[in-house]
């Protein structure tokens, strides 16, 4: 069962799935909200088994140079700034975008938009989310949207989401860090 929803309905869908005893073969897809701490720490064990998209999770396959340092600095400021305390979902990418721009400006020694853009289209960049290269259509050459499965979540504690193994990467193959538990109900019980 594939669900595509914004945060209020995402929480509603996850709760409703438990309330009606939903037992599909797989459950998840494009639910916005299951990436930030505010929902993760409230839904806790109800997340087990859900397969959903994400952008970065603390799995060994995604530990690129610089990411640890970035998250440490981000998390230190996050609570006082009132933003997502984990910072896994969007901040690494946002930081990477600026790394790309910065490297392009340094390499071309130019602020001319055309020159910088041409460079970005051709070059490869080293960022905290790994090596980045763009294709002819302007998107990443290889899609980097992850599909992760929530596994082995026993509490609503935030610290567990900083550990590997709770959000296992299933796809893309290159970053795969674990195996799919199938069907959904089997992962739900664990």
């Amino acid at each position, binding site marked *: 069962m594939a669900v595509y929803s914004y945060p209020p309905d995402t*929480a509603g869908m996850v709760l409703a799935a438990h309330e009606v005893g939903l037992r599909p073969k797989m459950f998840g897809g494009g639910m916005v909200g299951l990436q930030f701490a505010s929902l993760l720490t409230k839904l806790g064990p109800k997340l087990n088994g859900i397969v959903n998209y994400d952008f970065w999770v603390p799995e060994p396959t995604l530990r690129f140079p610089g990411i640890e340092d970035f998250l440490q600095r981000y998390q230190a400021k996050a609570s006082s700034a009132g933003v997502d305390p984990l910072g896994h979902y969007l901040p690494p990418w946002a930081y990477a975008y600026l790394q790309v721009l910065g490297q392009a400006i340094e390499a071309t020694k130019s602020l001319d938009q055309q020159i910088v853009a041409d460079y970005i289209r051709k070059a490869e960049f080293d960022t905290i989310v790994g090596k980045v290269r763009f294709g002819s259509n302007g998107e990443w050459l290889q899609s980097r949207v992850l599909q992760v499965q929530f596994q082995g979540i026993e509490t609503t504690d935030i610290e567990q989401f900083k550990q590997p193994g709770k959000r296992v990467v299933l796809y893309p193959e290159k970053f795969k860090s674990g195996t799919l538990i199938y069907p959904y109900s089997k992962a739900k019980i664990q």
Partner: protein
Amino acid sequence: MVSLDLLANAVVAGILLGGFYAAVSLGVSIAFGLLDVVNIAHPVFVILGSYAVYVTNTAFGLDPIVAGIVFTPVFYGIGVVVYRIYYVSFEKKGQESLRGLVFFFGVLFIVEVGLTLKYGVDYRLVEAQYIGESLRFGPVGIALRLLVPCVVAVLLTLVLYLYLAKTFVGRAIKAVSQDSLALRLMGADPVKVKDVAFGIAIATASLAGALLIMIGPVEPSMNREYIGRVFAVAVLGGMGSIGGTFLAAVIIGVAESLTSTFFGPSWAVAVSFGVLLLALAVRPAGLFGS
């Protein structure tokens, strides 16, 4: 062919949803229906209630309903202060109609932006044993996170109804907008009566906020989705009739639930005003108004 199971589930879900709408609308029914105060900021106080409950639930694991009740005196106080400012600045000078509305718009934005600055735009949820559990009666499932709010709303409706019907101040609240000089001739100070009434109206927002965040995640700007709906319920219920407000809320809840089940959720938002327009065409004073 419409499945009967689906229909039954949609009706039950609508009744439960309606109960919750009643809890959110009762404060408007008192302020707008009985006091003639167009408090469009009421839903933002509901959101404020949700955040008060969220903070205590997250910090101390306090049950959301208990937290909602604990905060009612604080919200009562907020209500009295807000009404006093409104009274001194606008009502006393006879400028309540337009400037008063602008005042409540201002209150709405101040509270909303204040919450956003303090807690960000992330969606917030609460934890309780019964959230995510459900009861089953044959083909009909009842989620506890919807049933508990509905039961609390019924109790809130009863308490308010009895308070307005059986106490001296309650009856004065019902009378105050009809003839405030006559009320003074009964020995009651209309401004104090309105203080109490508006305090109670805002106090209900604390409890309604607890119910809101129990049902689903909350973020500060969500209040705007409720402005139209709560006023539709209050008008449909007959302006100030407590029982009428509850029934109107259930009617709108069921209509919304049926609409989203059979025609898709996109249409549900249009339901409250649709029902209101239809009802007012037949009964201009609302379903239960005089």
